[in-house]
């Protein structure tokens, strides 16, 4: 079976995933992915009638089991400062992150 996730595809995925990998780990992960794809390939061999519905959850949620939507009532959260306190960098109540550098256009 040919390798589905080539180096190029892999690098693209790494970018999409907002990752950057050391070379050795990259090779290991790429090999594992290709192995997994061989297992996944089994799915393609399953004879599926065209109208087989998809299941989003295994259990069906009939209306009687489904929770109704929430009422529109304000319940202020008691400790927003506690949430902000987890942020690595904060200035004047704002969370700070590096900028997105401008790439000049041709």
């Amino acid at each position, binding site marked *: 079976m040919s390798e589905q996730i080539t180096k190029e595809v892999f690098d693209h995925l790494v970018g999409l995933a907002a990752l950057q990998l050391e070379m050795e780990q990259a090779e290991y992960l790429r090999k594992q992915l290709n192995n997994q794809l061989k297992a996944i390939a089994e799915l393609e061999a399953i004879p599926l009638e065209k109208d087989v519905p998809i299941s*989003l959850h295994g259990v069906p949620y009939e209306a009687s089991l489904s*929770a109704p939507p929430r009422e529109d009532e*304000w319940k202020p959260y008691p400790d*927003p400062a506690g*949430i902000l306190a987890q942020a690595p960098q904060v*200035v004047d109540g704002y*969370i700070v*992150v590096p*900028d997105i550098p401008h790439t000049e256009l041709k």
Partner: protein
Amino acid sequence: MTDYEAVIGLETHIQLNTVTKVFCSCKADSWFDPPHTNICPVCCGLPGVLPVLNKAVVEKGVLLARAMNAEIRPLSFFDRKNYFYPDLPKGYQISQFDQSLARGGYLDLPIPAAASPDKQAYTRHVTIWKLHIEEDAGKTKVSNQRRLIDFNRCGVPLVEMVTGPDLRTADEAAQYLIRLRQLLRWLGISEADMEKAHLRCDANVSIRVRGETKLNPKTEIKNVNSIDAVREAIAREIERQIREVEAGRHIEAWTLEWDEDSGTLKKMRSKETEADYRYFREPDLLPIRLDEGWQRQILADFPELPLERRARFVEQYNLPEYDADILTSERKLSDYYENTVKSYGGDPKKVSNWLMNDVLRMINDQGLNPQEMQLTPDALAEILKLVDAGTININTGKALLQKVQESGKKPGAIVAEEGLGLVSDDSTIREVCQAVLAESPNEVAAYRAGKVTLIGWFVGGVMKKMRGKADASLARQILEDLLNEKNG
């Protein structure tokens, strides 16, 4: 020169005016709140939290869908739209992709003569391509090469509504937004204030030779925050595209940003990669079940819409289009008008005149809510009737508007209390007339010498003495009698 036409589609994001956010119980509006004070674990995407749908968001979405003549799906789904951005705490936006709240829809948009190229009013049929619920992201601002993030706005409920490429001029685009804003306020589902980003608009613009049906590459204009700016930006972009094509160049699918200050369009940084959002069903939420019962409940009080009411006012009350348009600009005002007409029973145009000239000024100057005014439709109708009956004159009637509004008393009661009723008692007026003539021997002489135009001046004197309550025609009659009597 070749004749071009523009092809314009608008993508709007409408912030619903619910009390709370779409998936948590934080309040929806935090315009005046300091950063990170209107947040909770859910809207900040803390590990382990789950979204719980706000019922009011669905209800308001259904009202809009109905108003846009869209088909409401009995079962609709949420999906995750995945991308990295620091103001998107979960790294995905909960939105609706292929099975959204509503499907299809249209708006028959009246274009007034003033906004029409040939000064003839017409109607533009605008189709709706997309109408779905989603959550807003936080706010980002840049300072000193750093990005400052505030999550207060995360999870604010939005409806994204996208039109087909059906609009043909910048004015049509502006009219669409004007009518949409009116509709949103009419339905009470959004404050629709563009400056506060309650209503946001991106415009897709392309041009083609008139008569062609194909679609050419389009540009997308973002970051426009007033209706005037949308009109302006689109007009500029159409001009630019025509110039480009005329010069033999191609239009590229750019994203343009409107710079309010300079009134110019700037090209935005191109996206690093064309986004693949990898949409998939949100497993943390069950589908929205809009069974018949719930739909019926939501739509039970569905109002007559502004354009329908406008047409009816013209038809039923014989109002000029101009009056009908203003009186249906806002739902409460139009209800006020109609209630006054009913209570009054007289000429609807007269009600319109009073409302548009005087009451509307009071409303606007004093920032009043027509529904909560002390000057109720019944009170206004009563004033009109008092004038009609000659109990008070027009000026007294107009002065009464403010008095009723301030005191909350009935117009008739104020008239009685302050003695504002017209004095039509012959002897009272006769006494005053005599006094006025006695005080002005020179003018009497002049009159008698033939300067009969002075009669108006004498009437004015009487009115002044009686603080306007005299029946003016009676006063004139008596004055003439007195002046001629002595003469004869």
